[in-house]
């Protein structure tokens, strides 16, 4: 069985002027059930790596295999299909639609997924229940606390049963107490076997991951134990 994510000498150069090498020759393997934290100061290339992993961007060198599939040879519609069914996103800014109910926000994740029509509402309700919001199905995200909103967003990332969840500074807009609650949710999901990659500059958040890697000036290096 192939690893979920396999980066082999991946680089990303933004054409200039001035030309910027945001990521240099990165190697990374994320196995199923892994929980990885990527840390680094802002401008270090964290976001670039996350967008590459999330198939929102293409590397300029190297190969990226997702579940053993070389994503470099796929067309845009196919990459969009993988985004819809294999990748769950959690954003710092939540990106919930304020005019829709919580359950409708979660259901949005199935709109573009092949085969996403079946039992859509039912599965959205189950996803909200799994993050502890079974009692806030019909409410509006604007009436929720920050921590609850992020849990709706996590439920949206989970509803398609993705191979990997990519979280970009998931606690960046939260205070320390609600941050801890959201990270406990991540721990719990990891405990259920979910593969998670978290980008953060918060050491507390990074400390909860099973292993950590650092990006500095576009170079990806392992911290402590764990292989690159």
């Amino acid at each position: 069985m192939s690893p979920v994510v396999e980066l082999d000498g991946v680089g990303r150069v933004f054409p200039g002027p001035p030309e910027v090498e945001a990521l240099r020759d990165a190697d990374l393997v994320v196995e199923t059930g892994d929980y990885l934290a990527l840390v680094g100061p802002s401008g270090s290339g964290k976001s670039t790596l996350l967008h590459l992993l999330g198939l929102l961007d293409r590397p300029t060198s190297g190969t990226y295999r997702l579940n053993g599939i070389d994503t470099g040879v796929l067309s845009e519609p196919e990459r969009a299909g993988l985004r819809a069914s294999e990748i769950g996103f959690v954003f710092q800014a939540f990106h919930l639609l304020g005019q829709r109910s919580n359950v409708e926000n979660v259901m949005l994740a199935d709109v573009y997924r092949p085969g996403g029509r079946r039992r859509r509402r039912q599965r959205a309700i189950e996803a909200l229940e799994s993050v502890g919001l079974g009692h806030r199905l019909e409410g509006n995200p604007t009436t929720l606390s920050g921590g609850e909103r992020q849990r709706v967003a996590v439920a949206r990332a989970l509803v398609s049963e993705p191979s990997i969840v990519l979280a970009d500074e998931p606690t960046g807009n939260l205070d320390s107490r609600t941050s801890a609650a959201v990270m406990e949710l991540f721990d719990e999901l990891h405990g259920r076997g979910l593969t998670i990659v978290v980008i953060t500059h918060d050491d507390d958040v990074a400390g909860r991951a099973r292993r950590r890697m650092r990006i500095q000036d576009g170079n990806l290096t392992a911290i402590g134990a764990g292989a690159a």
Partner: protein
Amino acid sequence: MAGDLGGPVSRSVFSWRDLGGEVALALTARPARTLLTALGTILGVAALVATIGLARTAGNQIVTRVSELEATEVVVSPERRGGFGGGNRNTGSAIPWDAESRLTRLNGVVAAGTRTSVNVGERLARSVPVIDPLGQTEYQIPVIAASPGLFEAARAQLLTGRTFDGGHSERGDPVAVLGPAAAQRLNVVRVDNTPSIFIGEEPLAVIGILADTARQPDLLSAIIIPDSLARARFGAEGVEEVQIEVAPGAAPLIAAQAPVALAPNTPELLRAAAPPEPERLQRGVESDLNSLFLVLGGISLIVGAIGIANVTLVSVLERTGEIGLRRALGARRSHIAAQFLTESVALGAFAGILGASAGVLSVVAVSASRQWSPVLDPWLPLVAPALGAVIGLVAGTYPAWKAASTEPIAALRGSA
């Protein structure tokens, strides 16, 4: 969680049902804003529909009111033929005296009657056989010989009494019907005792007085006598003209047939005057009314389109985060474009429906206040929503392209 994917990778999808659902949710999320965005287009479509509808209604009304009389009228008279044969003389023989019975046999003729001015020479008309040296009792009053059908063909209304009929005409009875002006001058107000009048020395019994006529207005000031009497006693030579009332729409046909029916051997000696075709008149009225208001309606449609384009463009900028999210969730550029384009097309169609309704209502309201019959082309309420949709399509193209070319990475970085 998924392991190796055996088959080819599935492309992301966006079903029609989901497209419709997303568009409906987006448009109903802020109903007041949706309505205001559509307002310009609503007004434009309403102006166009009302303009076309009112022009049609007014055109129809003008034709109905002004030329209903003309549209059902044909007048046949001898062709004037200067300097040939009879010279200036009336070709009296061209129209036979039995014109009425010849014409009423034609399908489409409602009524027909001949009229001839009678030259009474020096003979004056008076109502009493007494010559009063102190006051004027004798008048020069025109005398017109008519066949019985002329009254109906001229749409004459009686004030009192009756008109003469085929029997009077056949026997050459000395009877007369007075126009109201003639009756006043002769001081005849009632006919139940059949008062007598005199033309020269010829006594006539007055059997009726007219109230009004729609055609042949000179009947109003004349003494009208049966045509046979005019020939026998006053030397009338030939029919001057034939007044025909035709069924609506039959005028062109009767105008072609009447000369042949009256003079089978020499129809070219007769001239049948038919009214102008109502459609042509109506079209003229419509184009006059239309051109100005169509320009105004077109301008307000352009303003409406700019309104939709403007608000949609603003909402694309506002919804940058949503666009990035949708891309992350698997939407392709084409899906984003389809969503925004469909939103503006649906908005335009919605505006078209509302505008068409408002336009139709205003046509009905104006017609009701003027007591006109509203006339509307049936295609108009159907075309209007399509016009609105086209406006939405045109207005939404640039915003949709803008939305589709939004970079998801940049879009997601923004705050919620």
